[in-house]
């Protein structure tokens, strides 16, 4: 009697395919189908993962265009500030070296400009030093000037419409005065002081002062040497300071400090010279650093997402970024003081 052998082995020892039984065939068919779907799902998952990695590896802001002044023969002299007028699709740039404000379309084509003059010590008009800009809900231009303490409200042609005066002690342009500007969705205007004074004044949409908050100082929750101010979609106020413990601080609408992040130390998420801030529609907070030549991007909770830029004059690089602006959606404008240009970028 021959010894038993496995069904797939001939008496001669050769392996043969086992003829599946009907039930085995069905089981195999099910198995094969399931295996194929598994492979397909795995491949799909791998593709998705690769796509995600690729997307994550792409810069958060993609350079779109850049412009250097009215034209190549009339470059910017000393960019003070930048604002995006989403209503008219324009980018406004203040040039305190040329004492003017110029408007460009999003492709960098000059649309117009106007000289900004302010009263001198003897009352006669003199060339101003326009700096920070914002656009209010009526499309008017809010402009602070380093020679005066107030904010000028101007129409699109640069003609004065109103003035936002600051009370003492912030009415002395040599010690304080209006600096960074922001506008809330309801039209409320926030005016941050410049210099070591650390206060934020609140004006309603009819340009009446309705309040103020902020305690000058260097500790957490205090303000000093404010370089930028922006409003998040959920109406919190983001303020960047040069001389406080945290470079970036977030306040509620009443001015109570909610959180701060970014200290004066090396490493991602920290700062050497926070020079400007803006917020996009998704709540991401963009903060420029004029010494590190980067824009750092944080989520709405203050967690670092990415650093954009690096030193240079190529697309997506910066030379002393000094101001940021956004249309509230995906368009970003980055002003560079040494690069002497405005870079327009698309936030991803």
């Amino acid at each position, binding site marked *: 009697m021959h010894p038993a052998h496995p069904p797939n082995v001939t008496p001669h020892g050769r392996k043969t395919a086992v003829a599946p039984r009907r039930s085995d065939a069905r089981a195999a068919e099910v198995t094969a189908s399931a295996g194929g779907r598994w492979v397909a799902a795995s491949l799909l998952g791998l593709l998705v993962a690769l796509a995600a990695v690729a997307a994550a590896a792409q810069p958060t802001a993609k350079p779109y265009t850049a412009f250097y002044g009215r034209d190549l023969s009339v470059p910017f002299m000393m960019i003070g500030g930048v604002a995006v007028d989403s209503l008219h699709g324009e980018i406004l740039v203040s040039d305190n070296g040329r004492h003017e404000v110029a408007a460009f379309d999003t492709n960098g084509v000059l649309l117009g400009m106007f000289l900004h003059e302010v009263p001198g010590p003897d009352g006669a008009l003199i060339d101003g030093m326009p700096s920070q800009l914002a656009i209010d809900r009526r499309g008017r231009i809010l402009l602070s000037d380093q020679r005066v303490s107030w904010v000028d409200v101007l129409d699109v042609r640069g003609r004065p419409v109103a003035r936002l005066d600051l009370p003492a002690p912030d009415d002395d342009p040599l010690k304080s005065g209006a*600096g960074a500007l922001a506008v809330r969705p309801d039209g409320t205007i926030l005016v941050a002081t410049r*210099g070591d004074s650390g206060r934020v004044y609140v004006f309603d949409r009819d340009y009446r002062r309705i309040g103020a908050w902020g305690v000058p100082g260097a500790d957490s929750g205090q303000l000093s040497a404010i370089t930028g101010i922006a409003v998040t979609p959920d109406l919190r106020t983001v303020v960047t300071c040069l001389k406080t413990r945290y470079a970036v601080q977030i306040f509620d609408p009443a001015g109570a400090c909610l959180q701060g992040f970014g200290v004066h130390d090396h490493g991602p998420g920290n700062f*050497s010279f926070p020079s400007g801030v803006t917020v996009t529609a998704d709540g991401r907070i963009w903060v420029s650093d004029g010494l590190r030549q980067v824009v750092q991007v944080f989520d709405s909770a203050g967690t670092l997402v990415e650093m954009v830029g690096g030193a240079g004059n190529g697309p997506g690089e910066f030379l002393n970024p000094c101001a940021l602006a956004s249309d509230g959606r995906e368009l970003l404008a980055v002003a560079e003081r040494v690069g002497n240009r405005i870079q327009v970028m698309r936030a991803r």
Partner: protein
Amino acid sequence: MKRLVLLLMVVYLGALPAMAVAGDYHVGATLVCTDCHSLHASQSHDYPWLGQQPPAPVGGPHEYLLRQEPNALCMSCHDGNTGVPDVVGVSASGATRRQAGALTLASGHGTNPTGYEETDGHTLYSALPPPGGTGTFVPDPVEGLECINCHAQHGIATQYRNLLNRGIFGGKSLTYAASTNDITKDVFERSALAYTDQDVDFNEPDQKASRYANWCKTCHTNFHGTAGGPEVGGQSGGSSTEPDNPWVRHPNADVNIGTDPGLSGTGAPTDSSSFVSSYVNRYYTRINRVKVMAPNNNWLPAPTDPRVLTPSCFSCHKAHGNKNGFGLIFMNGSTGSPTPSEEGDGGQYKDLCLQCHSQGSYALNP
């Protein structure tokens, strides 16, 4: 263990410097190393595919692993920003009365604002020898004049404006007091972070010498030497009257200018009547005055004894410069003079002369 960690965190966070606090002028924990230095000069490119882009230096590698060349690095903060003293051209904060005035940039290194010329004071990147210099210092032919030729980039706690006291300035102290004066110090800042001419005054710890002038003449020799020397004339101990050697320039050493009998020609003046036409009395009557040194915390003493006031370099020049040639301050200061700026309140050099001197037709018809 948790408590220890928490305690250590509190200590660590408490030790972190506030964001770029001025007032201690770069000294101690004010700045962080990586603000200006790059750990590895190889960080000259960014990494677009990693998502994280480390801050890359501009060009380079630069000396001492700096992120940029020295002047550009200094100007990253000190030009065009409102939160730090702006020392180049027009002030970003709108200040029009900076005690030191404004630097300019040599051709090819930026555009100077309207009104500022390279001959109007210290010019960054300029390779020219200093006016009056005898070779003690000449800027590097390639890099030109740099901020760090005069200022200590890491600060010197005791020196006014971090001016150097080493190298060619070895041993030349220029001390200062802030908020509360100390007449043994050379400079008085009326408040911390004071940069305007209204907030800075100059003491005279040694009435026969100006340490401020002694510092400046390290490079700018041959201008205001010592009494009895060819640059100044006069006699050691002081005399400007004929037939003794007259002064040819304002002395800044060896003589107490205020007590010189030559002021009135009739001996050392002791009462106000002797000062009717004297230099110091004329200065006293000015509405706007240039800066002078005073030994007794009083820069406008009683008319009976204005002799104690002494001019020095800063009386006539802005340390950095202004819109006038050589940084001269055209300060007339007569009745009705406008509020002065960094250039003074007048239009020409004769206005400066008239701060103290009264001769010439311009004195009668300015």
